[in-house]
C-alpha cells in the first residue's frame, strides 16, 4: 500500500481522534491546532476527497441543521482500511524517527 501524503495523514489522524464528531469544520479546527496555521476549507476537503476515493474514510450524512442553511453535516469515519493505513503510517513514522538525535537539529 502506498503511503499517504502529509496532509492526508494529518486529516486522517484528525478524523480518528475526533471519533464521531469528525465533520468539515471540526476537522479543520483540529488540523489548525496541530499545524498552527489556518487551513482553507478547500485545503481540508481536497485530502478528504482523496481519502474517500481510496476508501480510507467513509461519509455519514447527519440531520439537516438550521445554522448550515438547512443542509446536513457530513461526518467522516475511518474505515478498517483507514485504520490499517494509520497503523502502517505510525510504523513508518516511528521507524524513520528512531535514533534521530534532536540535539543538533534545534540549533539550525
Amino acid at each position, binding site marked *: 500500500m502506498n503511503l499517504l501524503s502529509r496532509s492526508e495523514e494529518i486529516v486522517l489522524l484528525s478524523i480518528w481522534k475526533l471519533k464521531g464528531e469528525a*465533520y468539515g*469544520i471540526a476537522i*479543520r479546527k483540529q488540523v489548525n491546532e496541530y499545524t498552527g496555521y489556518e487551513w482553507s*476549507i*478547500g485545503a481540508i476537503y481536497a485530502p478528504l*476527497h482523496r481519502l474517500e476515493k481510496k476508501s480510507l474514510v467513509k461519509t455519514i450524512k447527519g440531520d439537516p441543521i438550521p*445554522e*448550515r*442553511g438547512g*443542509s446536513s453535516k457530513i461526518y467522516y469515519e475511518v474505515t478498517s482500511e483507514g485504520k490499517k493505513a494509520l497503523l502502517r503510517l505510525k510504523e513508518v513514522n516511528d521507524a524513520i524517527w528512531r535514533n534521530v538525535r534532536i540535539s543538533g537539529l534545534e540549533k539550525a
Partner: protein
Amino acid sequence: MKKKSPQSYYPPKLARWLLERIISKDIRDGALGDFDEIYALTANERNLLQARLWYWTQVAKSFPSFVLDLAYWKILLFRNYSIIAFRNMLKHKIFSFINITGLTIGLACFILVFLFIRFEGSYDKFHENYKQIYRVIKECVYERGIEYRADTGAPMSPLLLENFPEVVNAVRFTSFFEGLVSHNEKVFSEERFYFADPSVFDVFTFPLIKGIPEYSLNEPFTVVITPEIAEKYFGDEDPIGKVLNYRIGFSDKKLDLKVTGIFKKIPKNSHIEFDFIASYETLKSILSERFFTDHWSSTTYNYIQLKEDSPSDDLEKKLTSFAEKFVDKEEYKSLNLKLQPLKDIYFKSWRIGGGIWKKGDIQTIYSFTALALFILIFACVNFINLSTARLTYRVKEIGLRKVLGAQRANLIVQFLGESILYSLIGLIFALFLIQIFLPRFNSLINTELSMNLIDDFSLLVILILIAVVVGISAGIYPSLFLSSFHPVNILKKTYSYISSSIFHKALVVFQFSIAILLITGSIVIYKQINFVNNMDLGFNKKNLVTIPIQESSAKDKYYLVKHELLKSPNILGVTASSTITGVGSPNAIQMKGPGVENLNMGIIYVDYDYIETFGIKVEAGRHFESEAATDAENAFLVNQSFSKRLGWDDVVGKEIELFYIMNNRFTPMYDGRIVGLLRDFNFRTLYDRVQPVIFKIDPNRFNHIFIRINGDNIPDSIAFIKNTFKNLIPTHPLQFLFLDEMIEDAYQSEKNFGVILNYATFLSILVACLGLFGLTSLITQQRTKEIGIRKVLGASVEKVVLLLTKDYIKLIIISNVIAWPVGYYFMRNWLQSFVYRTSLGLGTFILIGLLTVVIAVLTVSFQAIKTAVSNPVDALQYE
C-alpha cells in the same frame, strides 16, 4: 461548540449561488454546509460585515481553481475530439483529400481577392493628411449635358489660397504629356514628368531621400527624381547637382534642369504617379503670363489642403460664386467647382475627364469577389455534401456519444470543430499556394500585393478568422444534421436517410450551373479576343514597325530617313501618320462643302504612300500621288463612312473646306478636292465603329513612322532601321514596336481578365468535380450490395455503369439548361461593349454542354466502373 442564542444567518444569495456552482461536485454537500456554518458563526461572534467579507473572499479564492478545473475537462474533451477528428481524417483519405483540396483552393482564391481589395482600398491613404486633401474638379454644363473635368488650370491654386483662409496649402501639377529627357548621350522619352509647386512635399507624403523638402523646388530650373531615374541617367554617380535636359512635348523648348533632390519611388497604391517633378518657377520663366492668370483649361491639376476641421461643403458653396468670375459664357452654360476628397479619387473618378493618373475599377473588384466566392462556396458545398452523405460512417459514434450523455450541443460543437479543423488545414496550404502564385497574380493585374504574415500580425488574425468563418459555414448544416438523430433509432438502425437525396442533387446542380456559367464566360472572351485578333481590319497589320516621332528634328528629317530606309531591299515601304493606325483616334476639324455647313469631322494626316504601305483598298478615284504636285496642298481622301454620312454617291471630285472655330474666330485650314474613296478600315480599336474621316497630307503633323519590312528577314531589317536612325538623327530615342502587337495590347485588359477567368473556371470545375467524385464514390460504396445482387441476377457491366452514371448525367444536363439562358444574357451584354463582336450561337452552348457532360462522366464513371467490374461475391459475402 456552544452557541449563545444563535441567530440564523444566511450568506448573501448571489455569493452562495456562485459558490454552489464553483465548488466541485465531489465535496459540494459537505463543504457548502461548512461555509454556511462558518458564516453564521462569524456573524454571531463578530459581525455581519466580517462574515460577508469572509464569504465573498472564499468565493473569490475558489474561482481560479474552478476555471482551471473546467479547462482541464474541456481540454480532455477537446483532446478526444481532436483524436477522433484526425483518425477520421486519416481513415477516409479520399474524403479528407477532397475537402482539404477544395478548401485550400477556395481559401487561396478568396484570400488573394481579399489582399487585392485591401490594396485597392488603401489607395492614397498613406498620405498623412489624406483626410484634408481635395482635388479641385470642374463641372462644366454644356448644352449637350454635363461634363466633369480634372484639369482646372494653373491660376486656380493661388487664387484659392488667396481668397479662402480655410485653404491652408495647395499644389499644382502641370503636364505636357510626353517629353524627351537627356543626359549626355542618354535620351529617353518620359511620360511621368510634371511641374509642381514646392508644397507638393508638404501636402502629400512623398518622402525625400535626398534634398530638403522646403527648398528643393524653390528655384527655377530644378528637378527632383526617383532613385530609379537617377540610376537610369547617372548610373552610380551622385545625381545631386547634375543637369538633366528636358524638351517639352514636341516643341523646341529645351530646359536644363538641375537635380536638387531624390524622392522615394511612388508606391503603387497612389493614384498620382510621377518620376520627375520640376519646379513651377521653371514654367514661369518659359511660359507667358497668360498661362498663370487666364488659361483655365491647361492640363494642370489642383490639389488643396483644408484646415483640419473645415468641412469641404462650406468651401464648395463659396466656390460657386467664385467660379462665376472666370466662367467662359461662350463655352459653357455654367461651370461649378467641386472638391473631390483624396480618398475618393481612385474609385470615384470614372465620370471625370481631362483624366490624369490612375482610376480604379469597382467592377473588377465585384467580379473578382464573385469568382472567389463561387470557388469558396463550391468547397463548402463539397464539405456539406460529403459530410452528410458520409452519415453511415459516423452514425455509430454519434449514437454512442449520445447514449453516454452527449448533448446535441456537444455534438454540434464537435462537428463544427472538425469542419474548422479542415478549414484551418486548408488555410495553411492556401498560404503556401498564395506565396507561389502571388507574383503571377500581381503581374496579371498590375498590382503590388504582398502577404507578410510576420510583420502583419493583424492580417494573420484576419485570415484565421476567415478560415474559421468558412469552417463554420461549411460545418453548420452537417453538424445540425448529424446531431439530429435519436440515439435509439441510430443504435437500432431504424434511422431513415437516403444518401442521394434531393438536397445533394440540388447542390450538385448549383455547383455545375455556376461552373457552366464560368466556362461560358471563358469561352466567349476567348472567342472575342481571337475574333478581334483575326478580324480583317481593312489593312495589313503584319510586319509593320512603328516608331513614334519624339523630336522635331525627326519630323524635319523624316523624308531623309525615308529615302535612306528605302534603299534597303528588306524595307518594302515607309510612311507616316498623325495616329497609330488600328489604335489611335483622328483629330477633330470642321468642314464645309456642297450642302453642308460647320460639320464636325475626323481627320488623319498621312504621307503620300500611306494607302499602299498599309494595303488599304481604293474604291473609287485614286490615292495620293507624289507626281501630282498639288496633292500635298489640296487633295483629300475620304472613307466609305464619310460618303454614307454625307449621302454623297459620287464623292470623288467634290470640293470641301476644312477649318477650326476657336474663341469665335474662324481659322481656315485646308481647302481642296476629294480625289479618292477608300474602303472602310478600322483605324481605331474595335470598341468603336468606323467613323467618317478625311485623309490629308501634312508632314508637320506626323507623329508616327510606319515601316513595312520583309517578314523573312526581320532582325536584319530592324538592325538596318536602327543604324539609319542613329546615323541621321542620333538624338532620337529608338523605340520599336510592331503594329500588330500594339493592336493586340489595346485589348490587354480583356485578355488579362480572360486569363483570370480561365484560372477561376479551371479551379471551380476542379473543385466541383472533386466534390462530384467524392459524392459518387460514397453513394456507389453504399450501393455495393445492391450492385452485387444485380450482377448475380445477370446485370451486365455496361448496365451497371449506366445505372450508376445516368443520374449524374441528368443533373449535368439540368445544370446546362439552367445556366445557358443566364450565360447567354450576361455574355450578350458583355459583347455589347464591342462594336465588332463574335457570334454567340447555340453551337457554343452545345459545345459547353458536351464538355461538361464528358467531364462529369469521366468523374463519375471511375468509381462506377470500379464497382461494376468487381466480383459480386466480394460485395455479398459479409452479412
